[in-house]
Every structure is written in C-alpha cells, then in structure tokens.
C-alpha cells in the first residue's frame, strides 16, 4: 500500500499547484480518490466529520442496483432461449445477456464520464460521483437490442442538456438517466416501443414475440403470465426493470442505509395502488380492469419509484414534499398507463413530469413554514401598536 501511495504521489506531482498540468488536476484526483480516501483534514467548521461521503452514498446505490442488474442480464438470455424454445442452462442465459448488456454499460460509462471529466477540468471542480449511478441506470432501462450508438448519443444528450447545462451535479431539474431514455424514446421510437424490441433478437427471429404485458393489454390481448412470474420478473421488458422481487431487495438496501427516501417509495406505492384501485372500480378496458396489485409489479413502476424517483436532486427535498411527490408519481404513472394506449408504460413520463413540479411542491411546503413565521411577526407588531 505504501508503494502504491508513493507511486501515486509521484504520478500526481506534475498536476500540483503551479505545475505544468495543474488544470487537469481534477482528472488525476478522481483516480487518486478512487483508490484512497484523501488525507485532507478539516480547516473550518466542525473538526471531525462523518465517515459518509458522496462516493460511499453513490456506491451504496450501485450495490442496491446489482441484484436487479444481474437478474436483468439473466432474464435477457432467459427470454431469448425460452421463446425460441431451445433448452439452456442458467450460465448460457447469463452469457447471452452479458454479451448484450455489458457493452451498453461500457458505452454509457465511457461517454458519460468523458463529458463529466471534461466539464470538471473546464470548470475547475472535482469530478462528482453522481454519474456512477446514472451511467449504470441508463443501460438498465433501455430495451436490450438498442444499437450502441443510440445509447451513446442518448447518454451524451442527457449529461450535456439535462445535467451540465443546468450547472452540473446537484443542480439538474430532470433525472439524467430518465432524460436519456426519454431522448431515445422520442428520437428513435422504432427501437424503443412496439412489439419487436423487448426481447433479445425479437426483430430478427420471427418466433420471438417481443411484447410486454402492458403492451399486450393496451392492444387488448390476453395475458398468459402468472402473478408469480410478474413478481419474479421472468417477463419481457427493459433490461433490468422486470423483477419486482429484486427491485424490492434493492429498495430494502436503500431504505435501511437511509440512502433512498422511504417516504417517496411508500408515497409512490400508495398513489399507484389507489389509482389502480379506482380504475379497477371503473373497469372500462383491459388496462383499467388489470388488478391494482398487478399494476404495481409489472412494467417499470417498481424500478422507477425505487431507483429513479428517489434521486434526491430531482425529487422534492422537504419531508412533506417527498410524500406528495412520491404519491403523485404513483398516481400519474398508472393514469398515463391507462389513458395512453400508444405508450402503456407511464413511470418514465410520470417521474419526469413530477421532476418538473418538485420545486413547486417544495415552494409551497416551505412557504407554509415562512407564513407561520410571518404570522407570528404580525401578531407581535399588532400587539405593539395597540399597547
């Protein structure tokens, strides 16, 4: 370790203050702080600091994502082999999925991190860790056969327009990963919707039906999947969104570590359940009469509410606001599903919509606090006048 430390210090020398490559210090620092928590000590404010930092927080989210990702990779192969009807082992399915998914992850990280490093050097701040999560989320919510260059362009659009244009990490209004997906959805609709994209090789092999459950319902078809399959996630869909079971494990990790907001998640589930239940009572079409419990476990709702809606930057920031925000994401998600037959998956648009309204929610919650204070001031000044 000492040897490593010494060689790193040597390597860093030309990037030091007043040296030749000072401008590029953020780039080398990002690698250094990846290996070592730096020896910086407190200068102002509290003299001791918590062990938690943004790296640890973001890595916790990645750990919560891993079970879903691994299952998603396996499910990619599982859908392919089971639809063409050939026998397969777990390992074969996993390898098939990995061949498809890993290149997408690499493209997303390479494109996104290059832009992040570029902006860090340009703006002269350290590289923020937020992209570690975004970069993993982007491929996880894409259909499996989307061309890699589309992943790259969507990623670049999301980082540049949704994040850096607003000032970088912590300033963005929209969730960058969902922006990438929304960009791909509207720019390349044939690769992002329809009944030929949700299972590996569905567009090339005729015997494969690449339709999701919600797509089938919107088209008025019957569903052949059991509830257990929907919950476990052995159904077609975006790469890692299908398994409610493993999303629930991820949610548990996020909630126990306190990294994800349980208020948003609970609020979202309540909202979606309520909306689903109301539509059940109405029951005018197949999607409306689709049981509210099933609404919670199919499609991207579970993944979206746990991993995307809880993004602290784009969500509401106050405690009350988080309840309202989560609840409305749930409501709108089911509403969009049911009322928009062209686009039966509503969670992406529901979250993006609520991202836009999150500051408004916070504004009213905070105004409640401000008004209470101002009312107190007013009664005092009135008392002074009468006295």
């Amino acid at each position, binding site marked *: *370790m000492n040897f*490593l*430390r010494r060689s790193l210090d040597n390597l860093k020398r030309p990037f030091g203050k007043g040296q030749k490559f000072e401008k590029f210090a953020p780039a080398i620092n990002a690698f250094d*702080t990846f*290996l*070592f*928590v*730096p*020896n*910086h*000590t*407190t200068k*102002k*404010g*509290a*003299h*001791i*600091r*918590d*062990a*938690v*930092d*943004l*790296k*640890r*927080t973001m*890595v*916790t989210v990645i*750990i919560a994502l891993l079970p879903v990702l691994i299952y998603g990779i396996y499910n990619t192969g599982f859908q392919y082999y089971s639809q063409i009807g050939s026998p397969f082992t777990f390992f074969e399915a996993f390898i098939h999925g990995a061949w498809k998914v890993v290149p997408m992850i690499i493209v997303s990280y390479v494109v996104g991190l290059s832009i992040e490093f570029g902006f860090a050097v340009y703006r002269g701040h*350290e590289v*923020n*860790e*937020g992209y570690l999560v975004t970069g993993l989320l982007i491929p996880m919510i894409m259909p499996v056969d989307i061309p890699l260059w589309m992943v790259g362009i969507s990623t670049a659009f999301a980082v540049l327009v949704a994040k850096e244009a607003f000032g*970088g*990490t*912590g*300033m963005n209004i929209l969730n960058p990963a969902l922006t990438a997906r929304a960009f791909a959805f509207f720019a390349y609709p044939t690769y992002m919707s329809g009944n030929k994209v949700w299972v590996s090789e569905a567009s090339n092999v005729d015997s494969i039906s690449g339709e999701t459950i919600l797509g089938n319902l919107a088209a008025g078809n019957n569903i052949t999947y059991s509830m257990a399959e929907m919950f476990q996630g052995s159904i077609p869909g975006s790469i890692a969104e299908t398994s409610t079971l493993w999303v629930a494990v991820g949610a548990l990790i996020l909630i*126990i*570590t*306190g*990294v994800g*907001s349980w208020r948003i998640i609970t609020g979202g589930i309540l909202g979606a359940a309520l909306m689903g239940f109301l539509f059940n009572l109405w029951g005018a079409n197949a999607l409306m009469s689709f049981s509210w419990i099933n609404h919670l476990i199919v499609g991207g709702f579970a993944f979206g509410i746990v991993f995307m809606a809880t993004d*602290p*930057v784009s*969500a509401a*920031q*106050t*405690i009350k606001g*988080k309840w309202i925000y989560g609840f409305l994401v749930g409501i709108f998600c089911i509403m969009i599903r049911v009322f928009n037959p062209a686009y039966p998956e509503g969670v992406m648009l529901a979250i993006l919509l609520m991202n836009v309204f999150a500051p408004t929610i916070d504004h009213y919650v*905070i105004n409640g*606090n*401000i008004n*209470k*204070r*101002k009312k*107190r*001031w007013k009664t*005092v*000044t009135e008392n002074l006048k009468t006295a």
Partner: protein
Amino acid sequence: MEVIKNLRSNRGANLNIKGRAEKILDKTTSSKTFAIKPDDFFGTIPKLLHKEGANLKLGEPIFFSKKNPDIKIVSPVAGIIKSIERGPKRKIEKIIIEASDNQKSVSHSIDNWDKKTRDDLKAILSKSGNWPFIHQRPYGIMANPLETPKAIFVSTVKTDPLEGDMQFILKDKKKKFQLGIDLLNKLVDQNVFLGIEKSFSGYFSSIERVQHYTIQGPHPVGNISFHIQKICPLNMGEVVWTVNAEDVVNLGEFLSTGIFSPLRTVAVSGNSVEQPKYFQTIIGSELKPILKKAGIRNNENRVINGNVLTGSISDLSDYLSYFNNLITVIPEGNDYRMFGWLPFKDNSVMSLSNTSFSRIFNRKGFEVNTNLNGEERALVVTGEMEKFFPFDIYPMQLLKACMVEDIEKMEALGIYEIVPEDFGLVDYANTSKLEAQEVIRQGIELMINEVG
C-alpha cells in the same frame, strides 16, 4: 419548583467520543501569561486603551467596543501588557498580559445594588467589564445595553460532544448563582428562564425568581436557540439575552466583592488526552500548563478551544478563549485510507449514517480524528440535515439563501432564530462536506451589516 415546559426532540445525535473529562477538579495549575482575543467577541470592533508595556490592575479596561464606547473589556489579571499580536490589516489578534506578583484590582462600589435603577446597573456592568458576559439573540453577539430584552435565558445543560458538566463545574456556588440571577432579573421586565436537565440533581432546581424548563434529548437540544424557539420564539425586531451558566456565577461574584471575577472552569477532554479532567483557571489562561498536566498522547494533535463541532483551531502555545468551558485535543487525521469510501468498510470511523456498521461495533466510544473523510461535493443528498436539526426551520433552504445572500429569504426562513453553532452537527454529518457553520456565520455578518 415548577417546570413550565419540558423541551424534547429526537432530531439530533450524541456523538460518542472517547476521552470525556472525569469529575476531578484540579486547582493547582497556574499561568504566567494571559491573553484576550478580540475575536471572541463576535461582531465587536476593538479600540485599544493601552500600549505595550502598560501596567494593568485586575479589572482595568484594555479595550472598548467601537460601536458602544461604554462597554469595556477588562483585564482578567493584574500585570503588564507584554505584547499585542496583530494579523493582516493590523487586526488585533491577541493582547498578551504577563501577570505580576502583586495582584491589585479595580474595585467598584456596589453597595445597595438592588436599589439602583436599571440604567445605573447597566452602567456599572459596562464599566466594570461584566457586560460582555451578556449575549443577545438574534446573531449571538454582545448585547446592546440600550435595549431591553423580552427575556433572559440561562441554560445549565450542554449537549455538545465532551462538553463539561455544569452541575459539577458550579457545584458549590449556589449563593453566587442566585445572586447573578437576581441581577439579571433587574435587567428584564419579564422572565429569566433557567434550563435544567430532565433528570436534575443539585441545586439548580431550587434557584428562585426564574422560570424553570427541562431539556431532554440528543445534541443540539441543549443549544439555547432551541430553548428560545420553543419557549418564546424571536420575531423580527425582538431581542432575547443569554448568559452562560458560569458567567452568572461571575456576575454574582462581582456583586458580592465589587471586583471583576474572571473565573473559568475548563474540562480538558478528547481522545488524545491522557487524564481528561477539570481545571480551575481564569479567562485567557495559557493552555500549555493545563495540557501538560492533563498529559497529551500522540505526536500530531489538534488542540481545539471548545468542542469538536464548534470550537476554534488552536495550539499548545495558545490561550483559553473568553467564554470557553472546554478544551478538546484529538489527533490530526492526515493519513490515507485505501478504498475507505466503500460502504461498511472502516467501521472504526465514527458515522451517524447507516452506510457503516460503526455504531454497532463501537458502543464504548470512538477514537476520532480530523480527517475530512472525503472531499467537498455539490449538495446532492436531501433530508439528512433535518435529521440532526430540531428547529422548526428548513436547514438546507436557509443555507442556500445565505449562499446567494438573499436577505429577505434568510429572514423569512429564520436566520434570526439560529446561530452558527446550531449547525455544528449538520457540518459533521452532511455527505457533501459543506461548511454549514461558515455559511451561516457569513450570512449573519451580512445581516449585521445590512439590517443591523
């Protein structure tokens, strides 16, 4: 005794740090030089009355506040001004006084003080150097004698990490404490409030002519801002005064002798201290003899005038701050930790977050150091500040209002109700390593300059 209110909150945390001072009082240390640091009087611009080499009696004015020349800051000891240390722009940093063997003191006439008018009392307190003991809210600066506060708060509870126990520090001083309280009663129309622990012992509960309230919960519940907000919240234009518990005794001492009383009992604590205990000393003492006696481990240490959350950086050759009941010594943390950012790794590093097992494994207390444990980042995580902030205020929004210097927003979000120290735990716990106290301090300076 009647308790008017029990103040409790679960929002906060007690940091379990090793090295709490044992309840042993050492009265034998003596200091040769003493220093007054104008920085201890936040918001006061000093105007010196003497030059280097001047002879001073105990209680003789050294400097006064430019804003109000009647308020004198006096020497805690008789001696000679050895040197005046200045910083950038000739700012006065320390006035160092070498004690002489002959301890002469300035005596004030305090006969029949309880018959005197409020203005006369204020004049005596200002002249005799006792006025700086009285602070005001908003802003936590020295009180203005021209105003009358709506209440005076004294709290005998401190929840800051490793902070000294007031019940122990003031144990045999009931008479003087009561005398000090009586004096405060003369300065205010309504009430003097006294905060005591929920499970109180000792004499604080039998102090008369105060309204008692009890305090229960983790830090920062012991902060006086919390008590004021719960009992009589500050509105725009209103003033509340606060006095530290030991300074109430100093005021009482002054009333019984007529001589300025600079008593200070300090707890020396922290995980670098070999024998953490209490020392009887006076304001502005040298730290060296005290720390020598307590014994210091490790080579590279940070000496903190105050507690680990809100104290100021100091060193062995420094002097005790004016209002300080605590010196903390902890090791510097200038070392690297490989892959230290992995969740659930390095559980010996104290953490309030559930991304570490530290609280499960280290029930006996933590060895802390000054490592930043990361680097400063953008504000990403939300909701974490609220967990450690019992006030009816939105902490992150107030911090952001201070950063963009939006005075109207700062007022509306409650800048009048807090002082930087209330953000100590936010400083400690926030993921982005934001210097919250510094942001608030700058915000308050802006308020003082722009609004007054």
